[in-house]
């Protein structure tokens, strides 16, 4: 409940919340530290930290490359967890882990959750763990106060959405379209219908991700969703313009969030 309550309180002050994403160890943990500092200063509401995996099936080229280069550079799961603990200690906003199930399976589910809970991690996003395989992990996370973030897709039926929602906590991550991360999403008329179906199927706040890249994209979500997720775009920005470009970028996005509050 902690994450959900936090988001609801924040939402009372803004039209739409912002979640940003980083791949741990890409380009380096030091760079991650500097990027997160700017994100927090820019007013993001929560941050998902991706623990890299060699086989990131649901990710597009930008995040895929970041995963591979981080691992090639020697990033270990242990370093990622130590970093996550440090961020959670340093800043007030909630931090979540995003990764693929094998990382947690190898670490040991209970051991991972105990550690994440002790480190103050607010939530967990696992795109390759449907509830058919992960119901127990979801329950074990909830018991420790960690929100298991379930994912809705445009292909999910209403019955399916209700089922997913029953396992989740914190918020629901709605993917804006089919496909993988990183490609720009055209948010058309069907998209509004889709988010209405999502809204009807769950009482949890709705976050929308996949291809949200600009102020215009974020604006389009106001009234339809509670939180916009910026993923590949900040990685691209750091690649192209360096760490210092993140602050101003977040400020432009967040300006939208604050304008009519």
């Amino acid at each position: 409940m902690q994450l959900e309550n936090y988001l609801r309180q924040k939402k009372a002050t803004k039209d739409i919340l912002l979640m940003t994403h980083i791949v741990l160890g890409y380009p380096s943990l030091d760079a991650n530290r500097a990027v997160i500092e700017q994100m927090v200063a820019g007013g993001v509401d929560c941050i998902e930290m991706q623990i890299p995996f060699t086989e990131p099936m649901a990710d597009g080229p930008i995040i895929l490359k970041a995963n591979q280069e981080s691992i090639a550079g020697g990033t270990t799961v242990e370093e990622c967890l130590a970093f996550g603990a440090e961020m959670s200690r340093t800043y007030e906003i909630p931090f979540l882990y995003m990764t693929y199930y094998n990382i947690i399976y190898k670490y040991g589910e209970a051991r991972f959750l105990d550690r994440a809970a002790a480190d103050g991690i607010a939530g967990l996003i696992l795109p390759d763990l449907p509830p058919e395989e992960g119901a127990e992990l979801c329950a074990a996370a909830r018991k420790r106060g960690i929100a298991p973030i379930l994912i809705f897709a445009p292909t999910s039926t209403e019955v399916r959405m209700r089922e997913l929602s029953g396992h989740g906590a914190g918020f629901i991550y709605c993917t804006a379209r089919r496909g993988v991360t990183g490609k720009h999403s055209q948010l058309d008329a069907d998209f509004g219908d889709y988010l209405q179906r999502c809204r009807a199927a769950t009482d949890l706040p709705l976050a929308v991700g996949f291809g949200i890249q600009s102020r215009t994209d974020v604006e389009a979500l106001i009234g339809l969703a509670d939180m916009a997720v910026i993923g590949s775009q900040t990685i691209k920005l750091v690649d192209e313009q360096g760490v210092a470009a993140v602050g101003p970028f977040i400020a432009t996005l967040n300006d939208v969030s604050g304008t009519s509050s």
Partner: protein
Amino acid sequence: MDSTAYFGQWGGSFIPEVLHETFRHLERAFAEIKSDPAFWQEYITLMSTYSCRPTPLTHAENLSQHFGGAQIYIKREDLNHTGAHKANNVMGQGLLVKRMGKTRVIAETGAGQHGVATATMAAKFGFDCTIYMGEEDVARQRPNVFWMEKMGATVVTVRDGSRTLKDAINEAFRDWVTNMDTTHYVFGTACGPAPFPEMVSWLQSIIGQEAREQILRQHGRLPARIYACVGGGSNSLGIFSSFFGEADTELVGVEAGGHGLDSGQHASRLCGHDASPGVAQGYKTMFLQNSDGQMLDTHSVSAGLDYIGVSPILADHWEKKTVRFEAATDREVIEALDLTMKKEGIIPALESAHAFVQAFKEAPELSPDDAVIINMSGRGDKDIFTIAQAFDDPSWKDFIIQRAAAYQK
């Protein structure tokens, strides 16, 4: 998840939510064809008219005599259209795609055999076709790329990760999560999320059904041992299928030993000591991975065995000790290939030659009254560049140099 998704503790279906409905559709379609005898009949007819089924069981008399032990029989999957057992799975899935009303197929390929078979099927049935192939495999198996493209397929070179089979699988999934309405992913082996392991094994069981009948007719009783190479596991499960539970027949899977099990450069998941249980590419099995759960680079002289995971069905047989697993090194494979060509005039694929290695090691310890079957999963012509290099063949090198020079003019 329904119980058929698991084999012992292995298997399952670890898929992104966006594919949930696609897999429900696929499961229903598979359940329908499995319970419809007309489907299997249609499949048999197709395979006996478009491919060369039943494939022969060849008594390798010279090799049998050479080793002075068991009678060696070779199940000739190389005589399938496109030269490997891959055609069985692909044509069966092609019939399924027609029933599901989809118009496009995608596939991953390692050695290129599955890619060629899929491109063939797509041409025959009129489907659009895209094949994903790792950059390293494209370099190893360029002739197969040529044929895929000639049959109208788009071949996408995958430059991510280790640039081999696992990366091609990831990329095919990325295509599928975008285009699932029109597209079926023709998974090439008995791995991946349910129902693929069961479906691919079921379609490949045609090998075992024929082999059982043939060995009884030709040898008079069941074989003492059956040898099959194991990459993902589809050819081995295909031939083993009709012999599981037979007390007198031992089933032997042969993995890629690469430069040796202690070299760190191999693809032995079940008989080595570098693999551990894990979940990747949609299923749970023994993966070659480090203690963090990051997948390791694999090595084999044969592109088709060069893979991090193994069929969950075989992981279960390994755990229950109903299949024995061995490894053959790159060097042993080339020696077995050489001997088979010289003695029998038969050219096994580098993948299949792994099974020959183990059979040759064990044949002498068996009686001439015993029979063993080697599943020759594919033909070696496709490997001409790799084999010629392994033999360091001087006249072939001259030919390549001259041909290259001619292209440069």
